[in-house]
């Protein structure tokens, strides 16, 4: 029976905020913008807490990599029911270059250090949409992975995962320890209400540096440019079919 679950949570720009690109096209405006926990990470935390409530696992540890503010995200996870948190402090240039490869190295190192038997992550972050961290973490640890999970059941020494794939649903059985990534329909995350947040203040958040874990944060990617999506052009109304064909020919489509 898995004892300790690591849940990765990411601090992202809130889903309801209108994103603005910086004037120099180097990135997106983040200063003074509302941030919150990635929605898929919320689903991951909820699943871990549910497993603990069913007494199938013993401890839920919430992990986040980022600057000081990432602690707020860990606090939300603690308010949802995680037992303790680990804040991997990454700031400045390192944080700008932090991507799935670096995070998965950190998570793999932490999983070994904390002797975790299960890692649950959100399937992707709504800011970079990489959908890579779970897969890379499993590869680095040489653990099986159950990605896009819409249903998870713990068995003796294995996990049955129903995955959402293009054609429908795929059911697989994997050994523990394993990495799971949560999809939208896995569960309904609870809201972190004020009383729960107050109770969570007593829970501990450990502070760790990537160097302590022996992780190299150099990025192999360079962001060249960030652009807004093209503005949707106005449509045109035509009177007859001949007009339509004429316009299509003009546009070179026919």
């Amino acid at each position, binding site marked *: 029976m898995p004892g300790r679950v690591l849940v990765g949570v990411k601090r992202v720009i809130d*889903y*309801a905020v209108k994103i603005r690109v910086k004037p120099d096209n180097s990135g997106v405006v983040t200063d003074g913008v509302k941030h919150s926990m990635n*929605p*898929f990470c919320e689903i991951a935390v909820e699943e871990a807490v549910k497993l603990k409530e069913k007494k199938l696992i013993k401890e839920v540890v919430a992990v986040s990599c980022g600057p000081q503010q990432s602690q707020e995200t860990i606090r939300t996870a603690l308010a949802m029911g995680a037992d303790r948190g680990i804040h991997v402090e990454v700031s400045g240039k390192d944080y700008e270059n932090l991507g799935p490869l670096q995070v998965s190295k950190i998570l793999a190192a932490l999983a070994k250090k904390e002797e975790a038997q299960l890692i649950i992550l959100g399937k992707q972050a*709504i800011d970079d949409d990489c959908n890579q961290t779970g897969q890379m973490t499993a590869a680095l640890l040489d653990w099986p992975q159950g990605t896009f999970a819409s249903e998870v059941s713990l068995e003796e020494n294995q996990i049955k995962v129903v995955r959402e794939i293009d054609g429908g649903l795929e059911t697989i059985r994997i050994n523990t320890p394993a990495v799971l990534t949560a999809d*939208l329909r896995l569960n*309904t*995350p609870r*809201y972190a*209400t*004020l*009383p729960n947040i107050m109770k969570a203040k007593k829970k501990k958040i450990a502070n760790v540096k990537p160097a302590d874990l022996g992780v190299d944060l150099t990025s192999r990617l360079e962001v060249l440019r960030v652009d807004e999506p093209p503005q949707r052009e106005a449509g045109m109304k035509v009177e007859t079919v001949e007009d339509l064909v004429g316009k299509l020919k003009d546009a070179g489509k026919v």
Partner: protein
Amino acid sequence: MANPLRAEVVRLYKNLLYLGREYPKGGDYFRDRLRAAFTKNKSVEDPEQIKAMIARGEYVVRELEALYYLRKYRAMKKRYYEE
């Protein structure tokens, strides 16, 4: 005086205030209406009536949580899943 109930009312108010920050029409909009609703009933003495109002307040808490969840779920579904 309805002393133990007073603590419950204050707790409810703080919970609603916290939840209302994310209200789609704006945290200020919600806070003004919340204050108005609570001050309107300031002088109520009957414990039964107060308990009923607290229950109504807790109902609003659950409604808000459901609203926030649905909003987020629908946004994610629209963005990531082609139907």
